[in-house]
């Protein structure tokens, strides 16, 4: 009889499956050892607390969220325009870099290695794009950065920003960048490259 599978070991370690239901465990010291290790690691991890913040913190957090939501306005029916999102005062510092990645994903989707019939097929989902085969490109540090950023793009954010992940939507998104936004994108890419020492 083979060793226990991963999911069997997890079910045993977590408790829903009794050890007596798997006779292999009695005769296999390797599986018993693995089970003991899993349980020990679960016990060690369970012992790590999150420090309780000040009691005042929770109301302060609610107030911060309330203020941020107030600055947003009502939940949107339609998708936000790129320019509005780009100018958002709260989202700006982190999201600007992510915007770069979003735009780059759009450009990569348009430019790189799709089959001849790709444009006639159904739109690719974000996961399909992210999981597609690695692509080759010339040695250029900015493209390395692009690859890194694109790998970190969050699909929710892409959609929230008013983009979609199929090709025509990406095309539209790229074309909507103003000269100022393009300039800002270049600046951010340069900053990121400098930060990474590329």
């Amino acid at each position, binding site marked *: 009889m083979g060793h226990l599978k991963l*999911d069997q070991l997890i079910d045993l370690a977590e408790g829903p499956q009794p050890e007596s239901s798997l006779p292999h465990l009695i005769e296999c010291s390797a599986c018993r050892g693995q089970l003991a*290790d*899993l349980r020990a*690691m679960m016990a060690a991890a369970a012992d790590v607390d*999150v420090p309780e913040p000040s009691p005042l913190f929770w109301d302060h957090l*609610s*107030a*911060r969220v309330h203020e941020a939501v*107030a600055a947003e306005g009502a939940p949107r029916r339609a998708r936000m325009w790129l320019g509005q999102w780009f100018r958002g005062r709260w989202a700006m510092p982190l999201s600007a870099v992510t915007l770069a990645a979003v735009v780059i994903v759009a450009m990569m989707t348009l430019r790189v290695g799709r089959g001849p019939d790709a444009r006639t097929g159904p739109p690719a989902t974000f996961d399909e794009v992210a999981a597609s085969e690695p692509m080759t490109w010339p040695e250029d540090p900015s493209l390395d950065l692009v690859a890194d950023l694109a790998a970190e793009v969050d699909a929710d954010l892409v959609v929230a920003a008013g983009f979609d992940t199929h090709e025509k939507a990406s095309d539209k998104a790229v074309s909507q960048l103003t000269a100022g936004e393009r300039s800002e994108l270049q600046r951010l890419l340069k900053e990121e490259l400098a930060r990474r020492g590329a």
Partner: protein
Amino acid sequence: MAQSLTWTLPGTWRPVRDLSATRREPAPGLVAEDSPDLPADAAFGDLDESALVEASLAGRAGAFDAIVERHRRPVYQLCYRFVGNHEDASDLSQDVFLRAYRGLRRFRGRSSLATWLYRIGVNVCLNRLSVKRPQTESIEEQQHVDTRSESAPERVLRHERAARVRAAIAQLPRKQRATLVLRMYQELSHQEIADVLGSSVGAVKANFFHALSNLKKLLGDELL
């Protein structure tokens, strides 16, 4: 009037005159039309999640406040598990709720609101970790843990042990780490974790197994 403190972006304290006044102020664009079907703001705490979402979408500012109040602790704790310090965790918690608010129309109720918020939280936290390596708090900064039942040496030992485990968890691959956090600390079921991470129950169990195995490798036998 007594002054209190509130957070301002990007995470510095500033005094405000009256926090409660700030909370009552309606958000621009959030002034709802009178609706006989929607309760007064004071009654939002009694509504179920779908009613709260509906009321938020209808423009009732108090409804989203109630959602925040209900979920702020688990969301903060999730963020803290990823970044290991209060300041980043509180900033990220705000970001999670803000993004939830922006995307509220896309919440279909197929999962619980908590699961949906966790999904946003995991994305936000992993994105942050890819941009900035967080500064883990020192033991001295973690002031609010209840330690009354421990002796001083026990407390030091527990803190050291927790710090080693936390550091090891921080080294896990992203999906393993997210799986471990959601399973061990947020106590989500395997199915809920699969919903959050967009994977299968089998993949969740495999990730959890590998997370624990990698923890063992990282920690060695020192904690066994």
